[in-house]
């Protein structure tokens, strides 16, 4: 029961999606559509799963007074804040996504700046990483550096001001050798993806069951 049923479910659903792709005859299309709708519903639940490890971890941190436990209160406060405003907005406007609602207020004034700034930090890190790590140590590294420099200049207006051909060279790099490289890598990667799917459907691959 614990192992066999999941493997059978995986096989049936996976196999159905594969044959419904090739066989248009009813009832396969209908059946697949029903499964897809169910998938959407169930998938939603999988996304709250992470919540469990998050809560457990932080509650444990607080009860055991681990280093930085105070911040776990901040985390729980943030969680509660969103839940309260979300349901309050839902009651008030019938949807939390009314632009005037308190839920959207939290969204635009808390989550947006936090998310955006987290990533903006990368601008600084990439500069210092470029300075410290990008060395022309080998022939390959030199090629990488040169290509990067051309694209960095070619994709901004100042490149054309320096030399009018820089954007042309950078477009060519992107459209020809870069494309060929990505295609070569990705064909391999997607073959790997196809094979992984096959292994899952056939029940050879079971790590997701742990």
């Amino acid at each position, binding site marked *: 029961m614990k192992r066999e049923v999941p493997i059978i479910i995986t096989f049936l659903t996976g196999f159905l999606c*594969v044959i419904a*792709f*090739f*066989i*248009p*005859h*009813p009832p*396969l*299309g209908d059946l697949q559509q029903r499964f897809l709708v169910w998938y959407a519903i169930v998938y939603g639940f999988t996304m709250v799963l*992470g919540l469990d*490890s*998050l809560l457990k*971890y932080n509650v444990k941190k607080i009860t055991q007074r681990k280093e930085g436990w105070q911040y776990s209160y901040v985390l729980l406060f943030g969680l509660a804040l969103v839940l309260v405003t979300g349901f309050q907005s839902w009651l008030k406007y019938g949807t939390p996504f009314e632009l005037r609602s308190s839920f959207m207020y939290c969204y635009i004034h808390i989550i947006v700046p936090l998310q955006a700034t*987290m*990533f903006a*930090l*990368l601008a600084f*890190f*990439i500069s*210092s*990483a470029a300075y*410290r*790590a*990008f*060395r022309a140590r080998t022939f*390959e*590294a030199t090629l*990488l550096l040169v290509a*990067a420099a051309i694209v960095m200049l070619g994709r901004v207006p100042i490149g054309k001001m320096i030399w009018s051909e820089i954007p042309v060279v950078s477009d060519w790099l992107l459209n020809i050798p870069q494309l060929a490289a*990505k295609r070569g*890598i*990705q*064909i*391999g*990667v997607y*073959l*790997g993806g*196809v*094979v*992984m799917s*096959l*292994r899952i459907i*056939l029940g*050879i*691959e079971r*790590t*997701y069951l*742990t």
Partner: protein
Amino acid sequence: MLQSIVILGLLAQPPANVIAYDTPNDEGSSITLMWERSPADSGDAILFRGYEIYRSESATGEFKSVGFVPAGATRFDDGNSEIQDGKEYYYIVRSVTDSGFEDSAVVGPVASGAQWFNSQRVNVLAIALLVSLLVIYYIRRAHAGGRLFVRKIAGLDAIEDAVGRSTEMGRPILYSFGLSYLNEVWTLASLSILYRVAQKCGEYSTRLLVPHYDPLVMSAAQETVKQAYTETGRPDLYDERDNPFLTADQFGYAAGVDGMMMREKPGAVFWQGYFYAESLILAETGHSVGAIQIAGTTSVEQIPFFVAACDYTLIGEEMYAASCYLRPEPQMLGSLKGEDLTKAMIIVFLLCGAVLGTLGILSEHFFDYRGLSVLFERIVQWFNTF
């Protein structure tokens, strides 16, 4: 009065050669109509509005409108649950202008039906089958103990050197899966590489730190390390605190690993798994604490940072191959072989295609012979997906 009717008639001339047929490759309840544009239709929706499609169950019966397409269109799919498979229907296509309309002749009878195979997808079936059979064959062979060769990968010897050097300097080793989850191929590959690293650490009695992003990967990694230590006869080395869960937040994890590197100053760092934007923060810190860094990832967007900041980088599939080389498990090994053979076939096929295409162009240009080009075109067409 009479004149204006003639002009209107001219403007609204009907579409010609209307044909109706069962929509191919579908599950029924659909009929496709095609026609040639009315001479009045210049594709401009201002004078000529478009075509109204009418359906009836008998040639003389009552026709009802089932759809409208704008000027310039020459095709309409009447896909509707009202249509019963096997029942006969009749159609009229009407040209509509601002001031009048004109009907085509009645076409039909035509019936819809469902197909048992989507013939447009023959190419997908062929390639999916080819890959599947090759992989299944090689997995079975690997299970049966057949010898399957995997070439040496640059950077793998470095594992031993890195562990050795760390030991000499009295520093620990750090190993990270990045933001990987347990159901992903690279995680499995990374577990095999971790096994090898842990073995080496066991031999040299070096401390191994593995900070985690995902609790499931953490439990799998703990098992792996424990097993590797036990096998090298050093189960005493294992300490669960060296395999901690940090946080399931991208930047939180990066900051945590960063802090760990600054505190512990590892002599060697392994980045093996899936990485996102945090890759450069991690690799740069590793570089700044002077560690030997060995990276391996399939995330194409992040490889440049690893190539630049690390001493060795296993690029994409190289990481899978490395894991097979270090720990030949039948599933991984068989899959790698099957994929390899498919790649070889693709290469050969591309080569033949290039030769044929080139000869085609040359023979057409110099000898005015089109045969080869036509053949080449046919082969290219076979790959059409729609």
